Every structure is written in structure tokens, then in C-alpha cells.
């Protein structure tokens, strides 16, 4: 027998009126998947690229409903892929201490924000971009970074502090 459990639409299933009109996630995967795989290949090499991209897209999916605007989604996916590649590299390096940290290309390094954060290490820059460019809350940053919200907040505040020290010094 067919089941009808949804007599009234559940409010929790619907996006609230304030949330942005995000495109279906899979449309992004189908539109940008190929270039993201190429990006992952450049960062992590052919042996690891697919695992990295799969992990990155899962992280992106976790954070997706918390994005506060639907702008620059492609750049955001590049960013999540980059972070994931760095994390994967770190965990591999723990096993294989001979490898080098990959030289990571920054996608949108034109604007003032990028110039401001340029001196910081990549991890700090990524945390700052997720928080202030993508406008994610700390849970969203945590999902994208694959860490706890507390750790995400620490990463952002550490980055802000070193930025402040650098510019006040």
C-alpha cells in the first residue's frame, strides 16, 4: 500500500524564505565536475584526484544549505576542492614524510581581500574566504573544512589575529 506520511508539508524540509535560491546541487556537479577533477588532478596527482574530488563534493554538499548567497558557486567549489586536497596531502604526508606541500593556485587573487590575506598561510586564507567571501557561518566553515565548529572558529580567529598583528606591526 502507498504510504502518505506527509499530510502537511513539513516546514523543516522547505528552505526558509530568507535563504537564497540555490540551484540543485547536482546541476553544479554536472556543470563543473570535469574542471574540478582537472583541478584536483593538478593539486593531488592522477592517483588521488578522484578520491579528493569525491570528498570535496561531499563536504560541499554538507555545507550547501547554509550558504547565505548563491553567488560565485563555481569559485566556492574550487575552494572546497583546494582545501580538501591540502587536507588529503597532509594526512598522506603523515604516512609518507618525503612529499612536499603542493603549490596551490589561488583562483581569485585579484581583489583587495586577496591582497590583504596573501601573506597568510593557505589554511588561514581558506578559512577566511569561507567565512568572509562565502559568508558561511562557523558550522558551514566547519563542514567545508572537515573539522568541528569550534576548530573552525579558532582557525578563523587565529587568521584574523595574525592579520591584525601583521597590519598593526
Amino acid at each position, binding site marked *: 500500500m502507498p504510504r502518505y506520511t506527509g499530510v502537511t508539508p513539513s516546514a523543516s*524540509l522547505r528552505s526558509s524564505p530568507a535563504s537564497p535560491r540555490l540551484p540543485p*546541487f547536482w546541476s553544479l556537479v*554536472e556543470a563543473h565536475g570535469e574542471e574540478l577533477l582537472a583541478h584536483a588532478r593538478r593539486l593531488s596527482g592522477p592517483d588521488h584526484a578522484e578520491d579528493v574530488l569525491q570528498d570535496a563534493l561531499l563536504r560541499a*554538499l554538507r555545507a550547501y*544549505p547554509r550558504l547565505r548567497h548563491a553567488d560565485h558557486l563555481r569559485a566556492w567549489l574550487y575552494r572546497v576542492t583546494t582545501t580538501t586536497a591540502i587536507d588529503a596531502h597532509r594526512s598522506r604526508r603523515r604516512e609518507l614524510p618525503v612529499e612536499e606541500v603542493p603549490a596551490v593556485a589561488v583562483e581569485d587573487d585579484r581583489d583587495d581581500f586577496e591582497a590583504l590575506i596573501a601573506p597568510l598561510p593557505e589554511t588561514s586564507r581558506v578559512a577566511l574566504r569561507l567565512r568572509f567571501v562565502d559568508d558561511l557561518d562557523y558550522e558551514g566553515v566547519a563542514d567545508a573544512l572537515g573539522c568541528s565548529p569550534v576548530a573552525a572558529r579558532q582557525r578563523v580567529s587565529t587568521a584574523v589575529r595574525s592579520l591584525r598583528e601583521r597590519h598593526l606591526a
Partner: protein
Amino acid sequence: MTPLPDSLLDSLASAAVREGLADAVFTRLDTPIGRLLVVQGPRGLVRIGFAEEPEDAVLAQVAGRLGPRLVASDRELGPVRDALSAYLEGEGDRLDLPVDLEMVAAPFRRHVLETLHREVGRGEVVTYGALAERSGNPRAARAVGTACARNPVPLVVPCHRVLPGSGGIGAYGGGVARKRVLLALEGALPD
């Protein structure tokens, strides 16, 4: 550039479903009545689109209602694909798949479609007036027509089994030709 491997897409979608991250899962299915876009939410099928309906629009409509985390997976919807294929090839006597009429905002229209899904089986037909009556409002034949025309889950909620009281085959959201094929498939095509 090389396209994304199916293995990557499949395991991404399955991991998303396993973690409860998917608001809905969809699949594209080639059938004798053309390609179908089949979308399932957490509680059942929410949308079936015929080939003429722009896929982007259908998926955006579902995303607007259930949430934006849509993933595609033939594997996760394997049983649904098998059931629809078997039905459309004339095998299996009942298309017994759970349906979630979340996409239908108007309560009466939703009630009409629930009644239709529950009560009008394969090989049976019903008139708009009779379905209005069974839905508790005998004078609402016109509203029943609207409910059928906007049925988000055709085939499974069998609006092709609803015919005009004045005879003939009447209209169909997926085109009269498809209605004819479906009724013939069920041995219920009126003369």
C-alpha cells in the same frame, strides 16, 4: 577534459544518501513512452517529468520545495527504475511505489490525487465526476481536472485512468497519445 567517471558520481551519490545529505534523488530512465525524469524525496516519489519538460525547470521546482541538495543516482533508485520499466513493458500488475505529494500545495487537489492513487487500480478507469464524488465533493469535477492536469507524479498516481463522463479519452498532461498508450497497456482503452 575527461568527463567525471560514473564510479565517482555513483559513490558520491550513495555516500550522500547514506549520510542523509540528499533532499531528493533523481534518475533518468529511457522507456517506451520516452525518457522520464524520476525524482524521489525521503518519503517517496515526488515528481516524474516527461521528456518534453525541461529538466532544469523540474529539478529547480523540486529544489524549491524540498531543498537544494539534489543528487542523481541510478543505483539508489534501482528498485524504482525496475518497477517503472516492468510496468511500461506490460509486466507486473501494480505500480506499487510510495508517493509523497509534497509538491501539491492545494489540499483538495492533494486529496484527489491520494484518492486516485489509493483506489483506482490498473485496468480500471474513473470519470472526473466520479473521482470528485469519491474525493468527497461531487460538484468538484473541474477541480479534479486541474488536479490531474497538474499531477506531479504521473504514471504512479494514475491520472491517465481518469476519463470524461461524456465519453472519449479526454486530455492528459503528458499528451493524449501517451494516455492512449498507457490505457492500451492496461487493457482499458475505451472504444
